């Protein structure tokens, strides 16, 4: 196992290097420079300013410089936010996005799983149809439409929850629900299908015959087996939720990371683009590793390190 993990970490390192290289050169293909007044400055003035940021060097030189700094853990400074450190900006902004994403993931999965389980238990009953309906809506209505509706009806018309801003737990409720719609839908559908299959298999019948009560069968045998396919999709879903959702953050005026990234791309703020890409990339491969390890925990039949011949 340790050997396996070590191997994976080496691969992770190589992947990160590839991500850094590709995104660096792709980013340099973006038209324009980080200068805000590009339309007004003369070329000569622009060159003088770019000198300060090392942007006049040939791209390969910039690339080597970037990697050298990266090796020392230095993500550089933002061009647009007056030389503020990229690490600092990412940490500041990541907080709200991660909190929101985590809440949405936990709430969405828990609620979605329950929904799926009950839909499977009461197969072809109104509960099943209701959950199917909810899942279809959750998947087909874009989250920003749902967010807009929530904000208008719950925030403005009913006044139950604050319309926007980021000042305490009650401010996170509506954005969490809006973000959770997708995980709810996915989890519910997956769970229902898997549960139906698992509940129909022989070992469940055996368990029931041995006198294990209904809930015991459900949670101890059914859930565990039905979870495996779900674990696969949780990884990417977690990344998508944790790295910030531009639209939801904008609608609820949340100082998250999604908007920071989009702004950085729009204004050619290269260090921020790189920093964000690298961190997202890292999260991605890290979560994939965790998911792979989880398979083994959930279902001991799955072996990670090569066979035991």
């Amino acid at each position, binding site marked *: 196992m340790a050997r396996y993990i070590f191997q994976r970490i080496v691969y992770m390192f190589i992947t990160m290097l590839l991500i850094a290289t590709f995104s660096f050169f792709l980013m340099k293909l973006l038209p*324009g420079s980080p200068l805000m007044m590009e339309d007004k*400055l003369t070329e000569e003035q622009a060159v003088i300013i770019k000198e300060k940021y090392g942007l006049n060097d040939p791209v390969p030189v910039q690339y080597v410089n970037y990697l050298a700094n990266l090796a020392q853990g230095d993500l550089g400074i933002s061009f647009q936010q*007056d030389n503020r450190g990229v690490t600092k900006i990412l940490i500041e902004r990541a907080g709200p996005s991660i909190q929101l994403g985590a809440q949405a993931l936990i709430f969405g999965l828990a609620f979605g799983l329950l*929904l799926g389980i009950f839909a499977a238990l009461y197969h072809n009953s109104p509960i099943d149809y209701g*959950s199917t*309906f909810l899942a279809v809506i959750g998947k087909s209505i874009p989250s920003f439409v749902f967010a807009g509706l929530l904000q208008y009806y719950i925030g*403005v018309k009913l006044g139950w929850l604050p319309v926007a801003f980021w000042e305490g737990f009650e401010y996170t409720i509506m954005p969490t629900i809006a973000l959770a719609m997708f995980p709810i839908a996915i989890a519910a559908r997956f769970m229902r299908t898997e549960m139906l299959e698992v509940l129909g298999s022989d070992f469940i019948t055996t368990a029931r015959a041995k006198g294990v009560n209904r809930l015991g069968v459900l949670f101890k045998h059914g859930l565990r087996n039905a979870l495996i396919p779900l674990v696969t999709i949780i990884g990417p879903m977690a990344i998508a939720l944790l790295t910030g959702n531009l639209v939801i953050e904008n609608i609820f005026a949340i*100082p998250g990371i999604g908007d920071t990234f989009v702004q950085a791309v729009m204004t050619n703020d290269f260090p921020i683009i790189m920093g964000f890409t690298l961190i997202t990339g890292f999260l991605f491969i890290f979560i994939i590793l965790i998911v792979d390890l989880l398979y083994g925990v959930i279902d001991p039949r799955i072996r990670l390190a090569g066979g035991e011949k």
Partner: protein
Amino acid sequence: MKQTKWLLLVLTLVLSMFLAACSGGDSENAGEGDGNGETENENTEGENNEGGSEGDGNGEETKSDGPSGEQVLNLTEGADIPTLDPSMATDAVAFQVLGSTMEGLYRLGEKAQVKPGIAKDHEVSEDALTWTFNLREDATWSNGDPVVASDFVYAWKRAVDPETGSEYGPYMMGGVIKNATAINKGEMEVDKLGVEAVDETTLKVTLEKPIPYFESLTAFGTFLPINKKAVEEFGEDFALEAGNIYYNGPFVLSEWNHGEGWTFKKNPDYWDAETVKLEQINFKVVKDVATGVNLYETDKVDATGLSAEFVDEYRNDPNFEINPQNVLFYFKYNQEHHEALANTNARKALTMAIDKKGLVNVILNNGSLVATGDIPQDFVSHPETGEDFREINGDFLTHDKEKAKELWNKAKEELGKEEITLELLAGDSETGKNMNAYFKNQWETNLEGLTIELKQVPFKERLRLDTNMEYDIQFSGWGPDYLDPNTFLNMWVTGGGNNKMGYSSDEYDSLIEKANTEYATQPVKRFETFLEAEKVLMNDAAIGPLYQRASASVWKPYVKGVIRNPMGPDFSFKWAYINKNAE
């Protein structure tokens, strides 16, 4: 079994909530009456929170038009503050914050009148090259230091120093303050900049050439003083946090939560503190217009900007207002890229074929005005009569389908062509795309034999193509840098850095040259020369004016005295106050 029943209940509840929300959406119009009632209830609830202090305010102040109630203003801003450093500021948000928390030599007041700031007054030498500012003695920084002439010297030198990497520094000071350009290029010592602190309260500025608008220029953010101690004390972290810079303006930035918002508190040490009525201004970053409207409706903010889709809803609201800005949009006709565009009749025809009223009323729908020249409305006025530049010079190249057709046919004859294909280079935003489709349609329907190819690209790519002059017609815009016609007209001189469309007219060049040299100290003659120059430009149809941007917004009726600036910070809060009696 009990558990499952409980869960069933929750499920049903959630489901019904969902259905309620959906059906609510359908009957939006029908429920309007109810909606208003509910919002009013909301209002009273919201105010109850602040009820105590409000009551006090009413008791003390019996005047109905003065400040009353809690002097706190809640506003939104579309983006976070990118920087607090006056030398590095480039965007509207930074200039707004600096305009509220800092004081330069002068400040713009109502109707862009120049009001004294740190400078009490100034003298201009005979040759108009030396300006001597007399500074007040009672101005202080928020750390207690007096604001002295050397703070300006330090800030201005810092702005042109190539080490600083300022964008506005070389742009605003180059060619204005003596040696600024040479210093920025590194050809001269920073100390050679034409600015000098004669003593603590006397600032002497030497200009490169006479600059008639220099007074209003000193109200601009890049010309603000900087406390040298702060730069040295905070080093790399200077101006990166609310507490890492010293203020000398009507307000101080007391709190700044990056990405979320910030707070201004009244500066008790401001030299004119008794004029400042507001105790606090809270800004929140809100990017979504609908969110801003919802916050406004629930009384969380006192004003919000409106986009086109909300303008119709609020048009008849008594608190609705439209503020024309001085940003001008026009077509650039690249005379070097397509032979048809080197033809004056063709350029005229292209400009006149577009119905600009339809453009501003239907597509933009935010109060934007039709542009009829190179100088926007209400931007500059005659130094003696006070008449608006636009009014004096009248309207050029207005929409006239028949005339356009006639000119177009003439142009085709002159060119000896029946079919002409032109490329329109323009932005790729949603509104931008609508506009481009509109232009294409108007041109192709009105001008026979014309085919338009749209090239819709992101802003930065458009700039690149502009610099390389790789376009036929370009949809472009320009915001002024100072209150003078020169900021718009100077662009089109032969070989000008922003010309980039191959326009060249000896007559035009000599008029602009004259206005900036011979008549530099004669305001009336100078103004009239600019009028003349614009006529030349428009008769050549060098550019095709389209519209002047405006912004629509709603403000709560109790917000008074906020000044809308044509330049620099959008608003001035120095004279603003809250009057809850007005409700």
